[in-house]
């Protein structure tokens, strides 16, 4: 029986004895209290127990956990956590949007990392049942991605490693940005859905990718919904069309051929990208994806990248 301060258990008997000691020896007690105060409150991580049983409810988090060396502490993931390969062998507790509450409880996790897609009611229910849940909302841009990565690292005690990874990533990104400054930005349309046609809004992070890559998202002025019409695309006349959704690639490529007045169609600059890569960006793979985008937007002369 005791209470917790910074996750250090302080038994009640000790407190009582300390109290009596203080009352009997006021002067020396003052110094002793100061020392104890500093030890307990100011010493970061002293006696802190980092979580040893982690459940990840999102592919990004899973990847990041492994890159921070916490793969062993991860006891369960979702069906969608397929990177890295080792993660596929872990226990599964459900999908991105729906988890099996009983299984999560039965695995006795110290902490559960949830995403913006995790069912909020389930998050609440878990919290009510005494499970520690940390939710990672959608990231908007590269800085967000690094910030969330750092937050994750702090919670599992791997700040040093995280700092290194982030610094390296920021370097790469700076280098890549240098390649595109000064170049005229192509106008890009990113398609993430068909029937109905869906694109990325100005506040989504794919938009951030485009801008970092030195392009302009034709739909950047959209705020809430990504519903778009093909007519509007014709009007906007983008230089590049990127199809970033599974399964619709062939039909959509054919579909776009019906509008040869669009610059992207005429110049044969319709590309596909793996949506997983874009939607699951960690500081480590962000620069690689950015590089690919830059090569699409500003191809090196003689190395025009087509339709991959």
């Amino acid at each position, binding site marked *: 029986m005791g209470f917790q301060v910074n996750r250090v258990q302080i038994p009640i008997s000790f407190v009582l004895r300390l109290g009596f000691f203080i009352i009997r020896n006021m002067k020396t007690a003052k110094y002793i209290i100061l020392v104890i105060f500093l030890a307990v409150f100011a010493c970061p991580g002293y006696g802190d127990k980092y979580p040893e049983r982690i459940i990840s409810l999102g592919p990004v988090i899973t990847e990041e956990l492994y890159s921070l060396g916490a793969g062993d502490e991860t006891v369960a993931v979702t069906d969608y956590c397929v990177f890295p390969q080792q993660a596929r062998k872990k226990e599964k507790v459900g999908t991105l949007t*729906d988890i*099996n509450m009983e299984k999560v409880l039965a695995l006795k996790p110290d902490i559960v990392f949830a995403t*913006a*897609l995790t069912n909020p009611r389930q998050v609440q229910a878990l919290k009510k049942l005494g499970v520690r849940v940390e939710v990672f909302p959608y990231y908007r841009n590269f800085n967000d991605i690094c910030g969330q990565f750092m937050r994750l690292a702090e919670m599992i005690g791997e700040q040093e490693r995280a700092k290194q990874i982030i610094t390296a990533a920021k370097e790469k990104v700076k280098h890549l940005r240098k390649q595109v400054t000064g170049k005229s930005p192509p106008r890009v349309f990113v398609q993430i859905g068909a029937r109905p046609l869906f694109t990325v809004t100005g506040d989504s992070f794919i938009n951030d990718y485009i801008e970092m890559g030195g392009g302009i998202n034709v739909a950047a002025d959209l705020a809430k*919904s990504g519903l778009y019409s093909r007519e509007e695309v014709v009007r906007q006349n983008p230089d590049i069309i990127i199809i970033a959704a599974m399964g619709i690639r062939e039909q959509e490529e054919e579909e776009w051929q019906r509008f040869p007045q669009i610059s992207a169609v005429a110049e044969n600059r319709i590309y596909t990208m793996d949506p997983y890569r874009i939607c699951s960006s960690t500081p480590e793979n962000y620069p690689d994806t950015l590089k690919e985008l830059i090569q699409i937007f500003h191809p090196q002369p003689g190395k025009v990248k087509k339709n991959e």
Partner: protein
Amino acid sequence: MNKRAVRWVLWIVFLSGILAGAAVLSLYVGAVNISFKKMFSSVIRGGTGVEGTIFFHIRLPRVLLAVICGGGLSVAGVVFQALFRNPLVEPYTLGVSGGAALAVALCIIPGWYLILPAAGFIGALISILLVYLVSIKYKRWDMNVVLLTGVMFSFVTSSCIMLVMALSRTEQLHGIIFWIMGSLAESGWKIITVVWVITMIAVLITYFFSYSLNAISLGEEEALHLGVNVELVKKILFLLASLITGCLVAVTGIIGFIGLVVPHIVRMVVGRDHRILLPAAFLGGGIFLLISDTIARVVIAPRELPVGVVTGIIGGIVFIYFLAHQPLGQGGK
């Protein structure tokens, strides 16, 4: 008619037994199989430890919700089918669920998850009110007009919901779709208690209208000649059944088929007298939903099938079986 009374009592006992068995099975099965000893001690001392927590805070509420939801929807289905004298009517036909779903969808957008059940219930009440006010133009309340109004209202709310879905972001969209698909999970004890109290009171009041329901099944004019205050009874029963439906939909989402199929199956087995039909439908509905939910939970564990899928498939198959094996002539005894 002692023979008949005895038969009825036997049916109730039999169905209650099956319900209890299904409940125990559902409580046992899951990600962790919980022993009976643990179940018993959890009930007495509240949930402690992993098993206790799972049992007390996840499974027990879920089982209780399944029973009241299956039972309530079936009773509502019986009442609606008798009022409209139409075998295809079920609790969701009249737009109550549409109003609830729309209200919930509108609350998911700004992220107000805490008030979803309340919002759903209010949406349901508004639907009931609208359908009632639009259809009550003459002294005589024409049930055909009510049916039509309800169906139209259903269409309108469906379209509105699709509009909301089209304009929503991905995570909101998921939330809306999953709510609509119906689920018996994640309900706190407070909500379960409220749902049980409201639904049981409504079901019990409905039971006292058994004779009137028997009379109305013969026809409204017939019922009038038998001394039933048909207009008043229609309104009261419509309100009660809609209230039950609204209350349940607000908490569980849309779990279809129960209100349509269970009344028919039970009617084929125990007969048309509402004095036995109502309690048998309640028990039968509870059994049906409980078993469906158990199947939905375990068949592709750790993932879960939406319970509405299981009720639809099983309900359809069982119904066709019963239909095919009926004695020649009209249905049942």
